[in-house]
């Protein structure tokens, strides 16, 4: 478990070292904020925003626990066979809806398939779709939001109205239109990779305006700050101000949104599968397992509880991680 952690640390610090000269300026917002901590470590080498954040993060139990869970889930997603050797689709109808036992830790579902094996094998599709869709929405949304908030005026009006077009589309309706168009030319069932990409892109296209609105309002507030004005007065370019001064101060609210949205997107993938637009059998995903189990909730709760439990755990881990990262990154929190 420690190897990936150290690896990550070293990459981060080399990355910071390589950037060299910029490091001094990175700290400028903090100096403007008058944070006492910066001055309290005079002998340490000057670190960048990320370097600081890393040092800070390592000491937070929230981050360590969240990180460990995420690593564990990623390991499951990457090598499901190590954790459950069975075939997730093997069905034995005579075992249908049997409760947890020594043979099947999580019991069997309505078609007599082992829930434990399915939960393990379903992690990959769910985590990949959830994480990538979140990254995509946050990336598009933050960029557009930053530009809109920072430049204001006509750019802002244009981008904000443009985003509102997407915000006005009901998600399911929009997804049906987009995915039906993509799927139209395909014979039979589209492949797993293709469907996953489609689902991720669809979520990205339809959900980015929310993080855009959050980022935009944060950017509008941030650009009024003295340190931004100072940077402008020093002749810094727009790009530099946006990424070095505005972004770090705006990232917190988007981060919070992203960690919560992650769980939502895993659920959306299930909605799309349910409509016949998302992943299809034989691919397994938590969302599909949850939506399939809803009609058995009274008689066979374990069908719902185990995949839902893993979903909750994943979301919780990312929320903890996101919370910690936000605290570490946000200069205002120091």
């Amino acid at each position: 478990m420690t190897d990936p952690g150290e690896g990550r640390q070293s990459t981060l610090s080399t990355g910071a070292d390589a950037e060299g000269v910029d490091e001094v300026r990175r700290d400028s917002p903090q100096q403007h904020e008058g944070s006492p901590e910066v001055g309290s470590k005079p002998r340490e080498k000057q670190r960048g925003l990320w370097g600081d954040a890393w040092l800070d993060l390592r000491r937070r139990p929230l981050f360590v626990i969240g990180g460990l869970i995420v690593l564990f889930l990623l390991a499951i997603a990457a090598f499901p066979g190590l954790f459950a050797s069975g075939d997730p689709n093997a069905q034995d109808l005579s075992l249908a809806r049997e409760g947890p036992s020594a043979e099947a830790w999580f019991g069997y579902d309505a078609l007599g398939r082992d829930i434990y094996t399915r939960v393990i094998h379903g992690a990959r599709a769910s985590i990949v779709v959830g994480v990538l869709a979140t990254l995509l929405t946050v990336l598009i949304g933050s960029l557009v939001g930053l530009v809109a908030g920072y430049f204001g005026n006509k750019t802002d009006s244009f981008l904000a109205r443009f985003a509102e077009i997407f915000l006005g589309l009901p998600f399911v309706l929009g997804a049906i239109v987009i995915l039906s168009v993509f799927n139209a030319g395909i014979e039979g069932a589209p492949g797993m990779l293709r469907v996953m990409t489609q689902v991720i892109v669809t979520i990205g296209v339809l959900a980015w305006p929310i993080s855009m609105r959050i980022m935009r309002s944060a950017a509008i507030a941030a650009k009024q700050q003295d340190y931004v004005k100072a940077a402008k007065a020093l002749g810094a370019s727009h790009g530099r101000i946006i990424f070095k001064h505005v972004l770090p101060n705006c990232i917190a609210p988007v981060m919070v949104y992203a960690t919560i949205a992650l769980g939502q997107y895993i659920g959306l993938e299930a909605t799309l599968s349910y409509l016949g637009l998302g992943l299809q059998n034989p691919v397994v995903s938590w969302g599909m397992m949850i939506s399939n189990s809803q009609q058995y909730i009274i008689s066979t709760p374990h069908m719902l509880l185990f995949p839902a439990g893993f979903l909750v755990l994943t979301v919780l881990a990312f929320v903890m991680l996101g919370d910690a990262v936000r605290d570490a990154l946000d200069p205002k929190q120091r």
Partner: protein
Amino acid sequence: MRKRRMVAPVAASLSAALLAAGCGGGGGGVTEATGTLEDPITVQWGEPQSELVPTNSNDTFGSQVFNPMFTGLVEYDPNTFEARNAMAESIERADDKKTYTVELKEGWKFHDGEEVTSDNFVRAWNYAAYAPNGQQQANMFKRIQGYDEVHPADPDGDGPKKPPEPSAEKMSGLKVVDDHTFEITLKQPFTVFPEKLGYQTFVPLPESFFEDKEGFAENPIGNGPYEFESRSPSQSLTLTRYEDYKGADAGNADAVKLVVYEKAQTAYQDLKSDNLDVINTIPTSAQADGRWKEELGDRAISKDRMGLTTLSLPLYEEKFQNPDLRKAISLAIDRQQIVETVFNGSATAADGWTAPSMPGRTDGTCGQWCEYDPAKAKEYLEKAGGFDGQMTLSYNADGAHKQWMTAVAGSIRDTLGIDVGTNGVPTFSTFQDKMDNQEMSGPYRYGWVADYPTPRTFLNPLYTTSGSANYTGYSNEEFDNMIGRADRAATVDEANELYGKAEKQLAEDMPSAPLFTQTVKGARSDRLAEGTLNTRTNVAITSLKVAEPTQ
């Protein structure tokens, strides 16, 4: 106990008194019902799509009204779906096998007092078939001689070209002999034609219909056991018993009110709280785990549906052209287990290509090929040379098919050891398009419901080369010949025997694997002693019988 409004307070005070006296009394107050116009029996219904004219309506909500309001030459038994003479005294076939002489029963009257004569039938049928009248059910008359003259075929289907003007107004195959006798001549012999006559389109229409068609649609007049009383559009329609009805199946309840429900869930709740007397759908949420049967007890109605679900195979795809592979697929499906586990027993595993309760069917035509046999399935897969790549099973995702299709896919996969996936096509119309254009890349689900009570209704449209719903691309000369011979057979029994033989040919070729027949599900309230659904899921109004008061 005539007025129901009075019942509740009386019952309440009564039961309060009984409680005070320390006597349970069984809470019988609610079962009081009269079925009179003030307190009609209520039935779940939906707003029909088309006007209330039998020849221009083809939705089930319309049928719900027409079935009790009209009686044709032949009627179907609500329980067995068997055809029996109703208005017809006799239907005799001449030696040329295509001319029928119909004798009508005398003394029957429409609800407005007009006597039902041969003229009412012939005029109504000619009206329905005549193309400019644009009746939705016109094609039901296509077997009658002279149909092509009154209803010329559109040269390009539904395309922009207009069909040629009809050269006649009346079908030459219909001849009135006297007031109670008429002759029907068909283009070609068609043995099961009399069975088809029970369909709602073949009813007589009164003089008043031809005088004022719009008035008729608002206030339809029939000759059946129930007459039209009133209707509030989008809300309800009330029928009352026609006292002078001459037929056998005259009904019991004096008044029946069809109430429009948008949601099955609402109707289900209303039934449970005794605000509604009969429902003919059970919401999916209540079907899970068979919960509805537990909740309703002996009020639940469950019977075989006159339909069949198959796993149809795309014979136009190269991969599925080997009959051994198709047999392997059929052998690999554990129908019995799926019926028990996924449907909680509310379905019947198929043993042939017609509905299990179809009158005149030959049982077990599918034989060994519909039995689950893993060893033989593998043997046939090997004989067929295996299967490469993923086999994708398609279904329409807007129906409740996902669960059982996944089970079927799993059964094939585990038995044959090949990669099997499922593909939910978002809507039925897209699914239908894919079938029409022969774009299915793998096996797909297909459901078919009988139109009339003979095995032919399952075989001819689905599997003959020119069948109207032959989407699999199956074409076998021998099969076509057998159906043709059955159509011209001397007697119905002989025809049925030939249909059975034709089915055995299907077992050799396996263009589709029969899966199961789901049950028709509904329920009735405690106010009714009897009440059932017909095999086409409509409520059989004449079967409703009010319970005897228990107090």
